[in-house]
């Protein structure tokens, strides 16, 4: 295994390419994931996230480039590597009409895992109460957690999750975040795709932003936002300052009225704050700092279409 940045790489992807009908869906994607890292692949629908993941899992043959998982190639099917990786697919992939516990016992048996590990995994994903509920009677969030449990039952070192939080309600999504953090705390390496920007920002150690099959940015969420030379959005309630007074603030642009607020952008937050606090109006100012969404907008020149 190659060492880089002081950590051991669990995943090394090099110039990965997949072409469908003459059109590259994944176009020269390269990145590495260190052991124990939570790595997010973020991108809008159709960016090539799932195809990238499937080539990494060995389910799809790459047209170009290479993948190394824990030092081995996943394609062609490598049965000594398979027990070391866990995969959760976008579809729930259950045996029909089995209970949560029966699913895990069955998946465990495929890997030669003792049935007593199953209770531990059920507890990890918070499904102990639903152990005897059939898969078709579980809620959306519970199904996703069971699906992750099925990928974890054989205690893999490396876990692939394909949009685990898609189509969940906000409550269930936050619930799942706790599960994912719990898995990371057990020292697993996690590679996961999502189209939720704020979720990737909260969960991931590092993020690769994928668009049109190419990595357009890759770093920690903080660094991605920090490197962005972006203007800060601000607003003041109407009546605090007139439009002209706002325009006279240092380095202010895009001044406009929006309902009960006057909105504008500035590069130097402190200068604006200074002027306002001299007038005793600083308490009214609201600022919104740059987010990954701004990073995406800056990089692609368009709104993020999730």
């Amino acid at each position: 295994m190659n060492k880089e940045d002081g950590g051991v790489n669990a995943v090394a992807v090099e110039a990965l390419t997949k072409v469908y009908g003459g059109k590259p869906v994944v176009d020269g994607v390269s990145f590495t994931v260190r052991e124990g890292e939570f790595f997010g692949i973020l991108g809008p629908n159709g960016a090539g996230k799932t195809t990238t993941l499937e080539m990494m899992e060995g389910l799809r043959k790459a047209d170009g480039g290479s993948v190394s998982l824990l030092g081995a190639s996943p394609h062609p099917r490598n049965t000594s590597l398979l027990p070391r990786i866990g995969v959760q697919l976008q579809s729930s992939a259950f045996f029909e009409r089995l209970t949560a516990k029966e699913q895990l016992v069955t998946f465990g048996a495929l890997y030669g895992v003792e049935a007593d590990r199953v209770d531990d995994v059920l507890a990890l994903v918070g499904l102990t109460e639903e152990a005897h509920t059939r898969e078709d009677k579980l809620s959306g969030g519970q199904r996703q957690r069971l699906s992750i449990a099925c990928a974890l039952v054989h205690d893999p070192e490396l876990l692939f999750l394909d949009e685990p939080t898609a189509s969940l309600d906000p409550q269930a999504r936050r619930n799942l975040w706790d599960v994912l953090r719990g898995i990371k705390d057990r020292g697993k390496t996690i590679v996961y795709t999502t189209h939720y920007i704020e979720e990737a920002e909260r969960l991931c150690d590092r993020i690769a932003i994928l668009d049109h099959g190419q990595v357009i940015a890759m770093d920690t969420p903080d660094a991605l936002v920090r490197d962005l030379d972006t203007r800060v959005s601000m607003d003041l309630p109407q009546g605090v300052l007139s439009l002209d007074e706002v325009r006279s603030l240092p380095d202010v642009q895009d001044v406009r009225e929006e309902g009960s607020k006057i909105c504008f952008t500035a590069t130097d937050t402190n200068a604006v704050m200074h002027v306002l606090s001299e007038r005793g109006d600083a308490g009214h100012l609201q600022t919104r700092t740059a987010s990954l969404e701004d990073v995406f907008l800056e990089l692609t020149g368009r709104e993020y279409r999730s």
Partner: protein
Amino acid sequence: MTAFQQISVAVGKGFVRDKASLFFTFLLPLFFLVLFGILFGAMEGSESTLEPIQYIAPGILSFGIAMSAVFASALTLVSWRENGLLRKLQLAPVSPFTILTSRFSVTVIVAVLQAALFFAVAFLPFFGLRLESTWWMAVPLFLLGVLSFFSLGILIGSVFKTDQSASAASNLIVLPLGFLSGTFFPLDFAPSWMDTVSLASPLRHMNDGMLALLVRGEGPEALLVPCGALLLFALITTGLAGYFLTRGDQ
């Protein structure tokens, strides 16, 4: 439990919990038995050398088993592909052979239970079926028949990708096989081309062998041709299914 045992248990539980297919699997052959029993009962005194029930019972049983084995294996494959389970199995260190044989073991158990229930009803005085003492020699033929239908279903499931198309294809294939293979009427009455065409049907060979052993009292030599034909059919369909399954892989 081993992967083989656990997959069988999982599929078996899924089958038992599906009340609609349970009903279809076990009552369809009995429904045909009653229907044709009444129909052929009215044709008493035809040229056939056998009592009608003696003639129709083995054919109806084979047909019922063909229907449920083809449907079950085709739809299992389609639903496993649709819900992603096939890919999950591909990602587990378990061989396709293990998966197929454990799924097959459930089909065999179901077929044996179907046969047991069918005979229990056909033995009732109302139907009055009597088996020859050589009946047990038909067991290998029976198993090869189930294998042929299972692999036919896997082939259908590997070609047709949705529930609807796979069940339509299963119907379109198995129903004509029933007519072609002497299940519903003796092939003696059929045009000779039909007799020739029916040689390609696994159901025809299963019927021939079952009739010979169960009710005609012929010896094991009567099994050679039917068993050979069924084995050949199973090999060809499995080979084709393997081709279609791996071709669609990428």
